[in-house]
């Protein structure tokens, strides 16, 4: 039987209360959101916090997906399931819907949250790549105010983010643009498993050329985005050749490792193929948006 080591338990009733508890209990306290990364780690004693601050009661205050000021705003406690079922995301930023269909399984999706996923920053985690491809920004709040970070500033690598002691993530903001399309492609060994490799792409079309593009990969090394591939796409008309060129750049720039999910060589090959497919689908969606 796997049992976490003992801890003291606090239940936050509001964001302010959670921040106050974080300040009072110090660096030995951890937030508990959906618990589907933290509790397994605690059961394996990979994490043994002295205090747990349960933010499950904030599922109301921080559970939303809404359109505001040209952005989609997603509360940090929004569960995977709510992201999957969001009609707004499916219509405007379909990369989220694509990814949520293949993140874990429906029962895990009932608990896991976007805030927990981004803060866990597992190297195979999908939403960090999704948010990076979608140019999302993350709102990090402390007692003295908030910072709004883009994904390059927020996501520092495997299991590391810009969230400091005493801070928490409250919201994710995804910009909306006309003529934009996005898509996510993932290869997994079986339903509900973590990615062998996954790729996300977003493009913005204007007058038949790609005005802006972003590509992000999951499970193939720490740096999720591929700015070089995005640069290769910008300012050029979409074509199969161009997609293949960008996919090649993204795959060449990633750093997969050989493990039980496949060899590094295989993963690099899959990264190129998935980037290509994601670009195709993102562009098709952008064309539909444009017309």
């Amino acid at each position, binding site marked *: 039987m796997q*049992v976490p080591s003992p801890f003291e338990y606090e239940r936050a009733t509001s964001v302010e209360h959670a921040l106050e508890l974080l300040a009072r209990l110090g660096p030995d306290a951890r937030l508990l959101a959906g*618990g589907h990364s933290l*509790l*397994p780690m605690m059961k394996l004693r990979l994490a043994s916090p002295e205090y747990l601050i349960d933010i499950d009661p904030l599922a109301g205050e921080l559970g939303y997906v809404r359109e505001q000021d040209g952005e989609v705003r997603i509360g940090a406690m929004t569960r995977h399931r709510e992201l999957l079922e969001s009609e707004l995301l499916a219509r405007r930023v379909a990369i989220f819907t694509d990814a949520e269909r293949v993140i874990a399984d*429906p029962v*895990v999706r009932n608990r896991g949250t976007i805030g927990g996923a981004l803060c866990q920053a597992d190297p195979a985690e999908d939403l960090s790549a999704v948010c990076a491809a979608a140019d999302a920004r993350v709102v990090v709040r402390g007692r003295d105010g908030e910072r709004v970070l883009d994904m390059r500033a927020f996501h520092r690598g495997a299991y590391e983010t810009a969230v400091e002691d005493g801070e928490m993530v409250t919201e994710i903001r995804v910009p909306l643009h006309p003529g934009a399309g996005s898509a996510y492609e993932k290869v997994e060994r079986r339903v509900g498993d973590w990615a062998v490799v996954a790729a996300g792409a977003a493009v913005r079309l204007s007058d038949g050329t790609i005005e802006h593009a972003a590509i992000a990969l999951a499970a193939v090394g720490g740096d999720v985005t591929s700015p070089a591939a995005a640069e290769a796409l910008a300012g050029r008309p979409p074509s199969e050749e161009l997609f293949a060129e960008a996919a090649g750049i993204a795959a060449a720039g990633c750093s997969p490792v050989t493990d039980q999910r496949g060899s590094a060589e295989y993963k690099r090959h899959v990264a190129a193929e998935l980037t290509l497919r994601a670009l195709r689908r993102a562009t098709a969606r952008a064309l539909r948006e444009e017309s």
Partner: protein
Amino acid sequence: MQVAMSVNGEERGAEVEPRLLLVHYLRDVLGLTGTHWGCDTSNCGTCVVLMDGEPVKSCTLLAATAAGHEITTVEGMERDGVLDPVQQGFHEEHGLQCGFCTPGMMLTARALLDRNANPTDHEIRTAISGQICRCTGYATIVRSIRWAAEHANEGARA
């Protein structure tokens, strides 16, 4: 710490350690051993119970978090001696062999039918995709859930 929650419609409270997982609260503190416990890693789904009507893996949820919520376990499916149509469906269509996955499968089926009275086979398969039947009886499990959808008002005397 003191926790209290509604379990199968009855208010149940106890003094527990904060680190106690819901599955052990149900099995060891309340003696409701119908909720099974297998992989302990949130992969197999045999520990599924309903929290506020939605399936959750009780090996990956603190009893402390569940406090104040409504929990339904397999023991709560039969009412006044009448089986839930899902239970009856598993009986009619041979939905279980060893029975280890069955409580979790049936509760997920109940939650699915509460949201979607007439799911397709694909929707049924998706709903139970986080749960493993070690006896691999998936085809009959899907048929059992289908039976329950088609006989929504036909529970039977237990």
